[in-house]
C-alpha cells in the first residue's frame, strides 16, 4: 500500500468502518428477539375432581341428589364415586361411554345408607366447565329446609362468610382430602370481636382420602356470627361449611355457606332476595391487618342504589361486621357491590320467616368465565326458581339461557335457548322452570361484553313456612393459564 496519500487512507478506513456499520444495521433484527412473549399459555382443562360434602343430618333427609353437568359435552369420562374409594373401584355412577353430543348430566340420588361424601371426577372435555352440586330437601325434622352445596375442587385456601356458634346452632366445617397424601390445614375464625385461631383448628391433619369435620361451636362457642378461612399448610382440601339452626325443638333452617371469592378490594355479591318476608344481613370481613373503609352499592332491577345510612362503613381489621339490609328492600332480587380500600370477603344470609323459618346464603362471587350450569331447577305450583343476573359494569351484557332436559327422560317441551339482556348496572331476574320437572339450565355470557354475575334462588312454599336455598352460579373454568416454564441455570439469582 502506498502510504503517501493520507486522505485516501483516511477515506478508505472510514469507508470500511461505515460500510460494516451499514451492513450490520441492515442485518440487525428490528425487534428484540428475547424478552418478549407471553407469560405462558392457555390450555384446556383435562382433569377435574370435585368433592361433594355429605348431607348435614342424614336421618331427616327426604331427597338428596348429586347432580353433575358438563355443559359442553365431548370426549372424556365423568363419574361419581365415594370419597376414598380405591382407584379401581366401580363408580357409583358414570357417564356412558357412547352418548349423544351435547351437555352431559349425571344425577345420582344419594341413598340414605351409604357414603355421604361423594367425589365427581371428570377427564377430557367433560372436565371443562363441569359443575356439580348436592341438593337436599327435608320437609320435616330438625334439618327441615332446602339446602344446596356446590361441589368444589380442592383448593389451597377457602373463605366462607357465614355460620355461627350460639346455642341451637350447629355450624360445621367439612374438610375432605381426595389426594393420596395427607393434608394439613389451619383454620381461622373471624368473629364480631376479631380473628381467632383456636388451637384445635391449627395444623388439622386430614388423612388421604378422608374427611374431617370441625364443629364451630367447639372452636368459638357462643359466637353469633362467623366467617371461616381455611388455609392449607401442606396438601389441599376441599372445604365446605354447613349451617343448621334449631330453635328449641323446632327446626330453624339449614343450608351450606357458599365460598366467597378470595380477599379483594372489589366484590360483587349476587342473588340477594328482595322479598318482603326475607331478612337479609350483609356480613363483611377485612382479613388483612388494616381497617377498611367500605362503600356499598345495590344493583337492582331498577338501577343501582346507594343505600342511605349504610353506604359507607368502617370495617375493623379481622372483625366480622354485620350490616342488616332490612331498611332497603328493592323489588325482586338484587346484588351488592362492595368497594373497599382493603381486601375484603363477604356474603349475605337471608332468612325467610314462617312457622318454621329457613335461610339461604349467597357470597361474593367471581364473574362467569363461560358457560355455567344451574344444576337444580325446580318449578311447580309451590316451587319457583329464579336466576338473578347482574352486570355491574358500564355496558349491557347479554347471556343465553338453555334449559336442559332431565337426565333419562324427555320433557314434554324443551324451551329454545333464550337471550337475556342485562342492562348495565342492574340486576335482571329470570323465572326458570318447566313445570313439574327438575331440570337444569346453562347460562352462557356473550363474549366480550363485560362481567356478568349470576345467582339462583329456589323458594318452596311449604305448609309450615317457606323452604329456600340458592347461591352464586359457579363454573369450573374450561381453560387455565399455564405459566411459561424454561430451564435456566441462573434461575432465582438476582438481576439478569
Amino acid at each position, binding site marked *: 500500500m502506498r502510504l503517501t496519500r493520507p486522505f485516501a487512507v483516511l477515506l478508505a478506513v472510514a469507508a470500511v468502518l461505515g460500510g460494516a456499520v451499514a451492513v450490520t444495521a441492515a442485518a440487525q433484527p428490528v425487534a428484540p428477539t428475547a424478552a418478549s412473549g407471553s407469560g405462558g399459555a392457555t390450555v384446556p382443562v383435562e382433569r377435574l375432581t370435585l368433592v361433594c360434602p355429605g348431607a348435614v343430618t342424614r336421618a331427616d333427609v327426604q331427597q338428596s341428589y348429586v347432580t353433575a353437568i358438563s355443559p359442553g359435552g365431548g370426549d372424556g369420562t365423568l363419574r361419581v364415586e365415594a370419597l376414598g374409594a380405591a382407584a379401581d373401584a366401580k363408580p357409583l355412577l358414570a357417564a356412558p361411554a357412547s352418548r349423544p353430543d351435547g351437555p352431559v348430566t349425571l344425577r345420582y340420588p344419594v341413598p340414605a345408607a351409604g357414603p355421604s361424601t361423594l367425589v365427581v371426577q371428570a377427564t377430557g372435555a367433560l372436565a371443562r366447565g363441569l359443575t356439580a352440586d348436592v341438593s337436599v330437601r327435608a320437609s320435616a325434622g330438625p334439618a327441615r329446609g332446602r339446602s344446596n352445596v356446590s361441589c368444589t375442587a380442592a383448593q389451597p385456601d377457602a373463605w366462607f362468610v357465614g355460620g355461627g356458634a350460639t346455642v341451637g346452632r350447629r355450624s360445621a366445617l367439612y374438610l375432605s382430602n381426595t*389426594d393420596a*397424601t395427607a393434608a394439613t390445614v389451619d383454620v381461622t375464625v373471624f368473629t364480631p370481636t376479631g380473628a381467632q385461631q383456636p388451637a384445635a383448628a391449627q395444623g388439622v391433619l386430614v388423612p388421604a382420602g378422608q374427611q374431617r369435620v370441625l364443629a364451630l361451636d367447639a372452636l368459638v362457642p357462643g359466637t353469633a356470627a362467623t366467617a371461616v378461612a381455611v388455609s392449607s399448610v401442606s396438601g389441599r382440601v376441599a372445604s365446605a361449611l354447613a349451617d343448621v339452626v334449631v330453635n328449641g325443638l323446632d327446626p330453624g333452617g339449614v343450608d351450606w355457606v357458599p365460598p366467597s371469592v378470595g380477599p379483594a378490594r372489589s366484590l360483587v355479591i349476587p342473588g340477594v332476595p328482595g322479598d318482603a318476608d326475607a331478612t337479609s344481613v350483609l356480613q363483611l370481613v377485612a382479613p388483612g391487618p388494616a381497617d377498611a373503609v367500605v362503600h356499598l352499592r345495590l344493583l337492582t332491577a331498577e338501577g343501582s342504589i346507594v343505600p342511605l345510612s349504610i353506604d359507607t362503613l368502617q370495617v375493623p381489621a379481622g372483625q366480622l361486621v354485620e350490616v342488616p339490609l332490612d331498611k332497603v328492600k328493592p323489588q325482586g332480587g338484587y346484588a351488592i357491590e362492595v368497594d373497599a380500600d382493603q381486601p375484603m370477603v363477604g356474603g349475605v344470609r337471608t332468612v325467610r320467616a314462617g312457622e318454621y323459618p329457613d335461610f339461604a346464603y349467597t357470597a361474593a362471587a367471581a364473574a362467569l368465565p363461560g358457560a355455567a350450569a344451574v344444576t337444580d331447577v325446580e318449578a311447580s305450583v309451590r316451587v319457583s326458581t329464579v336466576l338473578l343476573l347482574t352486570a355491574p359494569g358500564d355496558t349491557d351484557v347479554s347471556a343465553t339461557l338453555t334449559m336442559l332436559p332431565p337426565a333419562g327422560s324427555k320433557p314434554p317441551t324443551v324451551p329454545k335457548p333464550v337471550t337475556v339482556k342485562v342492562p348495565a348496572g342492574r340486576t335482571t331476574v329470570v323465572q326458570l322452570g318447566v313445570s313439574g320437572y327438575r331440570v337444569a339450565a346453562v347460562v352462557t355470557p356473550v363474549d366480550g361484553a363485560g362481567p356478568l354475575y349470576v345467582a339462583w334462588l329456589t323458594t318452596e312454599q311449604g305448609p309450615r313456612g317457606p323452604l329456600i336455598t340458592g347461591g352464586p352460579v359457579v363454573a369450573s373454568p374450561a381453560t387455565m393459564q399455564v405459566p411459561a416454564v424454561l*430451564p435456566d441455570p441462573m434461575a432465582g439469582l438476582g438481576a439478569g
Partner: protein
Amino acid sequence: MTTPFIDATFGPERLDGALGDPEELEPEPDTRTFEQFRVTALLVAHDGERWLPETLAALAAQERPPQLVLAVDTGSTDGTPQLLSAALGSSAVLTRPRDTGFGPAVAHAVDSLAGAVTHTTGPASGVVDWLWLLHDDSAPDPAALRALLAVADASPSVAIVGPKAVGWVDRRRLVEMGLSIAGSGRRETGIERDEMDQGQHDGQRDVLAVGSAGMLVRRDVWDALGGFDPALAMFREDVDLGWRANLAGHRVVVTSDAVIRHRVASSAGRRRPDAVGGRVHRADRRSALHVLLANAGALAVVPQYLRLALGSLLRALGLALAKAPGEALEELEAAASVLLRPAAVRRARRDRRDTRAVPARAVRPLLAPPWSGARHGIETLRGLAAGRTLVSTSAGSVLEPGPVSDELDEMATGSGWLRALLSRPGTVVLLGLVALALVAFRGLVLGGGPLSGGALLPAPGGASDLWAAYLAGWHDVGTGSGLAAPPYLAPVALLATALLGKAWLAVDLLLLLAVPLAGLAAYLVLGRLVRARWARVAGAVGYALLPAVTGAVAGGRLGVATAAWLLPFTGWAVLRAFGVGRAARPSWGAAWGAGLLLAVLTAFAPVLWPLTVLAGAGLLLLGAPALGWARLGVVAVVPPVLLLPWSLRALHEPALWVLDVGATRVGAGSPTAWSVALANPGGPGTPVWWVTGGLLLAAWAALLRGDRRRAGLGAWVVALVGLGAGLVLSLLRVTPAPLGVEVPVWPGAATLLGGAALVSAAVLGAEGLRERLAGHHFGWRQPVAVVLLVAATAAPVLLAAGWLARGAGDGVLARGAGDVLPAYVVASSQTPSRPRTLVVAVDTEGRASYALVAGSGRVVGDADVAPPASTVAALGPVLADVLGGRADEPAVAAMAGYGVGFLEVADPAPDRVVRAVDGVPGLARVGAVQGAAVWRLLPAGPRVRIERPAAADVPVKADATAATTTVDTPVIGGAAGRTLVLAESADPGWWATLDGTSLSRAAAFDGWAQAFTLPAGGGRLQVGHRAAERVGWLLAQGVLFVAVVVLATPGRRRPTEDDA
C-alpha cells in the same frame, strides 16, 4: 548500605582496640616484626599466569615478609611454573597433578614442609609456626601479614586469622570479610552483591571461618585438625576448617587491617577448575552438603539431612526453570553423591569428634541466621523487580515484561519514595482510578455476602472450593456434569490462595480493580509507543473507562473485566514477539511468552484468541518481519494447547468462543451497530452511544500524520478487526446448551480490543502534535487539531462522569444476591440422600425459570459447567402444573426423580404461586427465607435409588459429604429386572460394582440419568465416578505450562569477563 544483622552475626564480641577509626589508633607506622612467629607462606597456583606476577610482587613487598615461601603448582599448562621458579627458585616450587584440589595441594606442601624445614611446635619453644595460605590470584597488601600477626599476637587463643578481601580490579568492591554458611549450604559472606567498601564492615571480629586466600593458620592447630578435609576436593574447605577450629575451642578472627585483593577466579568461572573435572556447580553443592552434615550437632543431623534433600530438589527445579538444565542435573548429582552415601558423612563426623572441644551450640551464633535464606529470596525478587534479573535480560522475559519493570523501577527506587510515587503520572493514574472506582462502587464495597449479579455467581467459601471446582472431574451442578472446568478458575483460585483463601476478596478485587489496573496497564504499555506523558495519561484513562470495561464490571463479567488489564500486556508481548515497538528485538522466547499471556487472556475472554491472532495477521500483512508468521503461529497455537481440555470442549460447543465466561442470562438485548462501531457494547454499565465519538474521531484523524502513519495504520488494522468482530458478534444469536434458547452475544471483548486500538491510534496521533503544528503556518490544521483534541479529551471525562453517575454496579451487581437456602436445606444436602433443591423464579409476567441446585448454592464457575438444558427439560411441564396449583403426586414423583428434596420459589415469591404450590399434595412448606418460599418433597428424591418393576423405588444411601456421588453400602436382593438409577447425568465416567463385579450400563434412565442393570442378588454396592481422565489432562496441562514457561524464559546469561 548497612546491614545491621551482619554485625550481630559475625561480631558479637569485638576485640578491644578494633573499635573506631584505625587511622586514629595507629598514627605511627607499625614496625613490629613479631620475631616469635615463624610464617610459612604456601602459594597454590593453577594456570594463573594472568595474575601470578602481581601476586608474587605483592608477596615480595610484604613489610613483614614470611620466613619461608613455598609454592605448589598443580599441573599448570601456561607459564605458571616458569613464573614461580623465577621468583622463588625451583626448589621452593612443588608440582602436583592437574586434578589436584586446593586442599590436597596445601596438604602436600605442608607434608613436604615437615621434611624441608626444621621447627619446633608449641608455644613452649617460644617460637610459633604459622601457615599463610595464598592463591595465585590473591595479592596481599604490603602490611597484610603484619596486621594478621598482630591479631595473633594480641590473643593466644586465636588459631586462624583472615584478611579483608577486596576486588582485584576495583579495590572498593568488597569481596569477603569472614565467612559463614547458610542452612542451605550457601557460602555466606554477609556482603551484599556488588557492595562497596566504605569501611562499614571494618574492624576485627570472631567469625566461623575466613577465606583460604590470605588465611593465616597456626601450624599446631592445622596439624591437630588434620588440615583441610580431604573429602572436599574444592570449595567450602575454608568454611569447614574454620568451623572445626571453632568447635575445637579456638578462635577464628577476621581483621580489616589486613587487606588482600582477590580475583576469585575459579568459582567465578574464569578458569576451568580441573580439580573437579570442570563441574563447578556439582563440586560446590557437594561440598556444601558435606560440610553441613559433617559439622552439624548430633541432634540436628537428621533434620538437616531431610532439609537438604528437599532443598536440593527445589533448587534443581528452579535451575531447570531458569533454563540451566546442566546445573539442575549437577545439583541432583551432588545431592545424590552426598545424601545417598551416608558412610562418607559418618566417617567425617567420626574424625571431627576427636577434636571437638565445645558443644555445637557454642558455634551457632557464628552461623548465618535461619532467615538469611528468605532474605536472599527477597533480594532476588527485588532485583527482578528492579530489572536486574539474576537470570538474564538479554531479550527480555515474559516473567518480567519490559514495560512493567522499568516503571516499577522508576516508582520504587530513590529516596523520598512517596513524593517520587506521587510525581509519577502512572501512579497518579492508578491512584486516581482507584479513588474513582471506590466512589463508583459505593454501596458495593462493603455489605453482606459476596458480589454477584449478571454473569457473576457468588464466590464460594474459600480458595480450596475454587481449586476443587477446577480440578474436579465431576461437577455437582444441575443434573451433574463432567464438562471440562473453565480454565479461568485456575488464576482466580491462585489469586484467592494468595489472598489467604478469601475467594470473595479475589472476585471483589478483580472487579473493583478492573478499571484502575486497566488504566495502569494501558499507561505502561502506551509508554512503549509514545513518550508524551499527558497523551499517555489521557489514553490510559480513556482506555480504563471504555464502555466495554465499565460494562463488564457492571454486568459481573469477570472475564472481560480481567481481560481489560491483561490485554495491553498481551498486545505488547505480541508486538515484541514480532519485533515491533521501541527497542525491542524479536525473539522466540517473546513469542512463547506472548502465547502464554494470550492463553491466560483467552481463559478469561475466549473470543480474544481468534481476534488477537487475526489482528496479528493484519499487522504482519502491513509488513512482516523475518520469522513473523512463524512466531504468530507459536502465539496462536499456545492458548488452545494450554487450555486443553477446555479448548477441546469448545470445539464441540462453538458458542463458548463468543460467550463471556460465567453465567449467560436470558433477556439481554443487542446494541445498535453505531454503538458497537464506537467501541460501546451496550448493556448495563455502558454510556449512551455518542460519548466515545470523540475517541473515534481522534483516532481517525491520527491517520493524517505522515510521520506516524505506519503505526497509526497498524492500530487501525487492529481497531477494524476488533470493531468488525464486534459488529458481527452483535448480529449473532447463539444457543448456550444450559439455556437451550437463543441469546444475543455481548460484543464486549471485541469492542475492548477495538477500543484499545482506537486509544492507541489517538495517542499516537496526539503525541508531539504541538511541535508539528508549530512547524506549519497557521491554516486549517490548527483549528482542526484543537477541535479533535477537545473531542478526544472529552471522552475520558465524559466516561468517568458517566461511570460515577451510574455507579459501578448499575443495578445489576449486588451483594448477597446469591442462593439463599435455609440452613436445614444446606444441612440436608449433606445427608445420605444428598437431595437437590429445585429453585424456581417467577417474574412479574408469570414466566418461570428453574434450576437444579446442589449443596449450599451456586458459585463462581458453576454456570460454565452447567449440563445441557435437555437433561432437565422434562421438569418444565411438571413445574407448570405445580406452579399452576393443579399438580398431584405424579408431579412430585417426577421432581423426586431428579434427586430433588426441596422446592424453592425464589424471592420475590408471588403470593398466588405460594398458595398454589402449598396445595400440591406431596409438597410440605418448611419455611421461608428473605421472601422466598421453600417446600419439602414427600418423599424426597434420593440421589441413588433402585427402580423395581411394579413396586416402589428403594433409596440407596450415598456418601453424605463426598463432592461427587459415591456409594458404598450393602443392598439386599430382589426381583430380577431391577435398575440402579443415579440422579446424575449419564456419563461414561460412572461405574458401579456389586460385590466387586462391575454392573452393566443400562440405557440412560428417562433419557438423561445414569443407570446400571442390577442383578437379582444382593451384596455390597459401590458406585463412583472415575476422575482419571481429568487428572491426566491436568498433569498434561501442568507439564505443557511448565514447558511453555521454560521456553518463554530467556536463557541463562554467561558471566562476562570484566564485571569485577
